[in-house]
């Protein structure tokens, strides 16, 4: 499904599938030199991120329309989200972005141990984000705010609040899946880093994974105010 394509593409684009690399080293046969290969990989990754922009863009458009139509109900739904947890998660994700950026830097400087450490730190932050997300989901489950058969809401606008939670779970769910796959991919990268596959001469896979991870971070930077903070203040329109 959709969410799985991210890191897989990242994997294939970066040309870092091991069985393919054994014979040729990092330079693939159809490229003239490493520069051409790296630039192609970067360009491919950016194009892939473009498709991701439009992918999330589709849901965001749907969200914008429904929020425009059912403004008050969405504000009410949003007020049931846990702003504290959302904020903590935002901070955690920014930390993970920093460690990821530094990981790329470590690879550029051929500091293998630092690279491994930073990759692990990034995964730990990512994992923490998912754990907190899971706790939130669990709360929603207990409160019967998960859309579908078991949804219960005792308010006048139950239908539209249901719609809000549909968006909440769709958007954060797709985002979380992107993270899970990013972490899965990073585990593999960590092993390869430990083996010393990357250095200033060849760090394209690390760089591409960084781009992907930062993109996932950016998505959250938008999701957080759009979902969590909508019902937070006087902005609810009451």
């Amino acid at each position, binding site marked *: 499904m959709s969410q799985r394509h991210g890191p897989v593409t990242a994997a294939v684009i970066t040309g870092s599938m091991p069985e393919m690399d054994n014979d040729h080293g990092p330079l693939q046969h159809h490229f003239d030199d490493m520069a051409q290969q790296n630039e192609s990989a970067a360009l491919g990754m950016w194009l892939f991120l473009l498709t991701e922009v439009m992918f999330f863009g589709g849901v965001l458009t749907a969200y914008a329309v429904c*929020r425009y139509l059912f*403004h008050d109900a969405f504000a009410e739904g949003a007020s049931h989200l846990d*702003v504290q947890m959302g904020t903590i998660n935002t901070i955690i994700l*920014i930390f993970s972005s920093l460690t990821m950026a530094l990981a790329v*830097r470590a690879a550029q400087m051929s500091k293998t141990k630092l690279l491994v450490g930073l990759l692990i730190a990034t995964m730990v932050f990512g994992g923490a984000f998912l754990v907190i997300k899971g706790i939130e989901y669990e709360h929603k489950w207990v409160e019967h705010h998960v859309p579908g058969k078991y949804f219960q809401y005792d308010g006048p606008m139950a239908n539209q609040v249901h719609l809000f939670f549909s968006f909440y779970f769709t958007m954060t769910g797709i985002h979380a899946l992107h993270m899970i796959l990013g972490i899965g991919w990073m585990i593999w990268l960590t092993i390869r880093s430990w083996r010393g596959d990357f250095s200033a001469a060849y760090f394209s896979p690390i760089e591409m994974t960084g781009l992907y991870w930062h993109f996932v971070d950016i998505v959250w930077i938008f999701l957080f105010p759009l979902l969590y903070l909508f019902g937070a203040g006087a*902005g609810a329109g009451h």
Partner: protein
Amino acid sequence: MSHDAHAHDEPHIVPLSIYLAIFGALMIGTALTVWVAVFDLGEYSWLHTPLALLIASAKATLVVVWFMHVKYGSRLVWIFIFAGIAWFLVLIGITVGDYVGRNWEPAPNAWQAAVEAPRSSELG
């Protein structure tokens, strides 16, 4: 053959201080987002959403330009990014425009209005 080649031959290593500065700015941005969201803007409460999006866009820009190294990348990457943003704005702009526009009818014509009558001045 790569024509704008050799931009990548030597990795451009960004100083640690820049990363930390960006990180700090992102943290401040996060705090600002939360603060603005709970701040009572009185009759300007409709500004909450535009402000939140503005701050989020600023944060995203920082991530893209420095964490994602676009500042040091090729012009092509800039073009791609702007294309992505432009296409997304077309999609969301015209689609939301349809819903907003349904309340404007060419003639005084009460039957025509949609269920989604204007609710408040705040745009989604």
